[in-house]
């Protein structure tokens, strides 16, 4: 009976992910997932082994008190942080169950179960501290730039080897309980050291990878407890995180190893020491609004800067104003814009922009030559034509939005500071480009005001 419940839950989880593939059925997917989880929990409560409900109830209540406010009150700009935090909590649960299982049954477990258990604990604790580090970087508690020291990769490699060695020894000698805390300590430390050298702009990949680890840890728990529901749900999560991290890596034209060990995004001030003064064209909100007003088609390119400035609602006002004037407005979304996969879409949807106006990179790129005006709001590296043209550039080969092919480009930016990759953006010095210096939110607000001013005259 309980197995049937678990089977139903597994099916519902798969359906949940299937329905999530399209916005029209996505909410049904969430309902399916919720129902699956409910069935799984109720079926577990019916297990004969459970004789004491008191502590389970305590756990439920504490979990609800922590989890619900986080989900209900968190602003949409903070979704990456919340996701990192909840990866940490999910992984903590798996790691603690593995720990208890070791001390309870360690000596009775088969070599295989023991292997799965060490996987569970290693991945679990590594994900806990790794996700907390990612959270710290996203929440600006830690510096977003990579923290790098000499011999870092050597230290990390040695640490991982030590953790793996301890794990293997525990599989061979399950009685060596004294080594178990060592494994926990090494895993926790490895999680920290793995994430601190990774820069803020690589967070989409990192967060996907941690998602995958949390899932694999749950699947490993399924092997230890011989529970197929755990294996299935963990495998789904593991493959989802893996696919997303591959997509993110592809979108940056970088390999896993490069993201994890490359220390990318260090401020390369040394090489660009002698900053030559190059002139750019600049414009006031008034002039910019006039250019937008004259256009037939406008493509807005949002980036992390829009999220930081919380400018998405102003951008919606601008979208409304232009659409009302018969200007065709679309949004071009680069896969790694923002701090987690799909981050920009959520922000723009929050600002009530219809999702059929949000266009992916591969679909919008052929359209740029026909576009009158491109407005870049807080994006940088994903628009840099050097990725196509300059083989010496660190971002060469990265797929970008071909905004330089549009007739006119306007870029809202605080100043001329380089983006995450630390490279100058050639786009800013092109003849067709106009720089709009200022805070994204304030500037877009001014644009909206100017536009309505034009309306009053006309």
């Amino acid at each position, binding site marked *: 009976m309980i197995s049937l419940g678990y089977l139903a839950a597994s099916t519902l989880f798969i359906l949940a992910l299937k329905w999530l593939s399209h916005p029209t059925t996505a909410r049904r997917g969430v309902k399916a997932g919720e129902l699956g989880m409910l069935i799984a929990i109720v079926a577990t409560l019916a297990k004969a082994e459970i004789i004491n409900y008191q502590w389970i109830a305590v756990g439920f209540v504490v979990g609800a008190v922590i989890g619900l406010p986080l989900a209900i009150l968190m602003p949409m700009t903070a979704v990456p942080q919340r996701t990192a935090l909840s990866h940490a909590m999910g992984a903590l649960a798996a790691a603690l169950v593995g720990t208890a299982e070791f001390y309870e049954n360690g000596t009775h477990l088969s070599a295989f179960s023991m292997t799965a258990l060490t996987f569970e604990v290693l991945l679990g604790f590594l994900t806990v501290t790794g996700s907390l580090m990612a959270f710290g970087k996203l929440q600006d508690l830690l510096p977003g730039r990579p923290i790098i020291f000499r011999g870092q990769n050597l230290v990390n490699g040695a640490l991982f080897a030590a953790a793996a060695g301890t794990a293997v020894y525990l599989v061979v000698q399950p009685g060596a309980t004294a080594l178990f805390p060592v494994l926990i300590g090494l895993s926790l430390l490895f999680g920290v050291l793995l994430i601190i050298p990774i820069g803020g702009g690589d967070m989409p990949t990192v967060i996907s990878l941690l998602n995958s680890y949390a899932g694999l840890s749950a699947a490993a728990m399924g092997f230890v407890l011989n529970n197929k529901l755990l294996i299935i749900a963990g495998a*789904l999560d593991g493959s989802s995180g893996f696919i997303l991290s591959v997509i993110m890596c592809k979108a940056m034209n970088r390999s896993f190893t490069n993201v994890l060990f490359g220390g990318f995004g260090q401020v390369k001030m040394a090489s660009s020491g002698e900053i030559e003064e190059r002139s750019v064209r600049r414009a006031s909100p008034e002039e910019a609004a006039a250019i937008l007003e004259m256009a037939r088609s406008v493509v807005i390119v949002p980036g992390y800067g829009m999220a930081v400035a919380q400018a998405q609602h102003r951008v919606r006002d601008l979208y409304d104003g232009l659409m009302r004037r018969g200007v065709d407005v679309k949004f071009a979304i680069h896969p790694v814009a923002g701090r987690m996969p799909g981050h920009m879409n959520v922000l723009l949807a929050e600002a009530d922009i219809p999702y059929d106006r949000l266009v992916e990179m591969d679909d919008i790129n052929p359209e740029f030559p026909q576009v009158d005006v491109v407005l870049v709001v807080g994006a940088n590296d994903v628009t840099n034509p050097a990725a196509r043209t300059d083989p010496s550039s660190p971002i060469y080969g990265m797929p970008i939005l071909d905004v330089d092919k549009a007739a006119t480009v306007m870029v809202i930016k605080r100043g001329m500071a380089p983006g995450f990759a630390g490279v100058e953006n050639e786009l800013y010095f092109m003849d067709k480009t106009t720089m709009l210096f200022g805070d994204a939110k304030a500037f877009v607000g001014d644009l909206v005001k100017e536009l309505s001013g034009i309306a009053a005259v006309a």
Partner: protein
Amino acid sequence: MPDNLENGLFVFVLATFVGFEVIRRVSPLLHTPLMSLTNAISAISIVGAMVLAGSNRGPLATVLGTVAVASAMANVLGGFVITDRMLKMFKPRTSLAETRKP
């Protein structure tokens, strides 16, 4: 190879393939909700945590189990609620035009 291990590996491999096929189709538009949903689903470890917390196996199991139940539950509830909150915001143009009409 013991039977349950063999079964487990079959299930794992097949589920991974199903996961790949299903998730590959998810539109990039919804990658953030996808991640928070799979995050909620991975909190299925609550099943193991509940057994630990509720089977009177001694203080260590109970304490670790209870903490694990709490953190998994926070993940389950939080994950599903925020996923739904996000998806509620995704609207196509037509329905938006209707709702905006005064």
